């Protein structure tokens, strides 16, 4: 049984972890090529994910930290741990502590 969802409508929405705590907003979906297909590897949740979108050159990252935005952090949620419900909020099936964290300083998984 498979279901098709409109991903663009979930981008920017809040993700809660297994214990209902707020992880952050869903900002990125990392995929890899598999033959002629694109397959999801992991999801990026939290403000640091937003910074990823601008592929800022190294200099700009330093400027961003000066303004204290460097405190941005995020979580990497594996593909099997995020549920897209028909109604209501996105849920992560794992606890925040079990998730790989990353912050703007060193982009994870690049």
């Amino acid at each position, binding site marked *: 049984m498979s279901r098709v969802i409109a991903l663009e409508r979930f*981008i920017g929405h809040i993700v809660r972890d297994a214990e209902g705590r707020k992880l952050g907003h869903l900002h990125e979906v990392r995929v890899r090529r598999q033959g002629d297909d694109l397959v999801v590897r992991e999801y990026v949740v939290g403000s640091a994910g937003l910074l990823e*979108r601008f592929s800022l*050159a190294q*200099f700009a990252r330093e400027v961003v930290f000066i303004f204290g935005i460097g405190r941005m952090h995020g979580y990497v949620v594996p593909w099997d741990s995020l549920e897209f419900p028909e109604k209501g909020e996105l849920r992560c099936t794992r606890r925040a502590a079990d998730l790989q964290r990353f912050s703007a300083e060193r982009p994870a998984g690049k």
Partner: protein
Amino acid sequence: MKKILGIALGIVTSIGGFLDVGSIATSAQAGAAFGYSLLWAVLLGTICVIFLVEMSGRFSIVSGHTIVDAIRKRFGFAGFIVPFAASLLVNLLVLASELGGICVALQLLTGIRFQVWAIPVALAVWLLLWLGTFDVVEDGTALLGLVTLCFLVAVFTLGPEPRELAAGFVPRLPGEEHAHYLFLAVSIIGATIAPYLFLFYSSGAIEDKWDKSYITPNRYIATLGMSFGAIISMAVIVVAALALKPEGIRVEEYEQAALMLVPAFGRWGFYLFVASLAIACFGAALELSLASAYSVSQAFGWNWGEDLEPRSAARFSSAYTIFIALAALIVLSGLNPMKLTLFSMAITAVILPLTALPFLVLMNDARYMGEHVNSHFSNIVVLLIVLLAAILAVVAIPLEIIGSK
């Protein structure tokens, strides 16, 4: 040789495009009310616009894409649509002011009320876009725009006192009427850093097919073009200071501003002013209409290009057609042209942060700019511009209410 011609043309276009109803109205008011003491505002605005125009050109040259196209991709449809709608609305108000400027010039000449001219003027602007190509618009506005050099000639004829002139570049509050002074300062900067300049310039770089060899020429065109445009704007302030202020004439309507060239050119003064106002506004109206059609097409991914016949870019040409029609309706409504112009300039200042902020992000985006990303210096300048824009945005509205009389 072709490149030098391209640079010369680029510079001349910037002169034609730079001066518009906003810069003429605000400069005339500033000179008549406060003499030279608002020259610094034009200088400050020009420095900012030179950097932003150079960057928008470099962005197109290096990435082959325009700023608007990249803003949607980087900020997403939801994050992009509200600032985009705001900038379109402001463009519409400024276009209505430009069309109003042409109508007022015809009213001065013929005595027939400006609303009567709204439809013919809008038709003339539209027809040139409908039948013309990008070069026709670019070269037309450029060569015609040179008539505005008469303000420069007037400055030399009237001979301002150099030391007093130089003092005008130092910002300081006058004895009284602070609100009006600050309002004019904000409006002048708003008129100078007009968003349509970047939209037109960055799309123009693609229409003209500028490749990476244009990176340096782009810097000259942006710097010299905007500087020449600014010099004429300053000339309007100086001429108003010498021709209107001593007579005690404050510019509340265009009819009063039309007197300013009479002392320098006698019988020709009135006609030169009317011609300058009409031509500067006509050029700006062409660029504004195209800039709006460019930004809508690039935002929704449509095919666009002034060189294409209307048939092969139907949505693009329909966009500027609808835009001109709406602007004409605003003029038809009989709103006082001078008040509409000043209001549009203040509103341009309010959305300046939305105009300047994307540059900070996009000029540092390695995927678009490769190794031509902003240098530290350029980034610091953009940061300062965004800061200035934020301050202007906060003070523009209160000043509009208190200081616009």
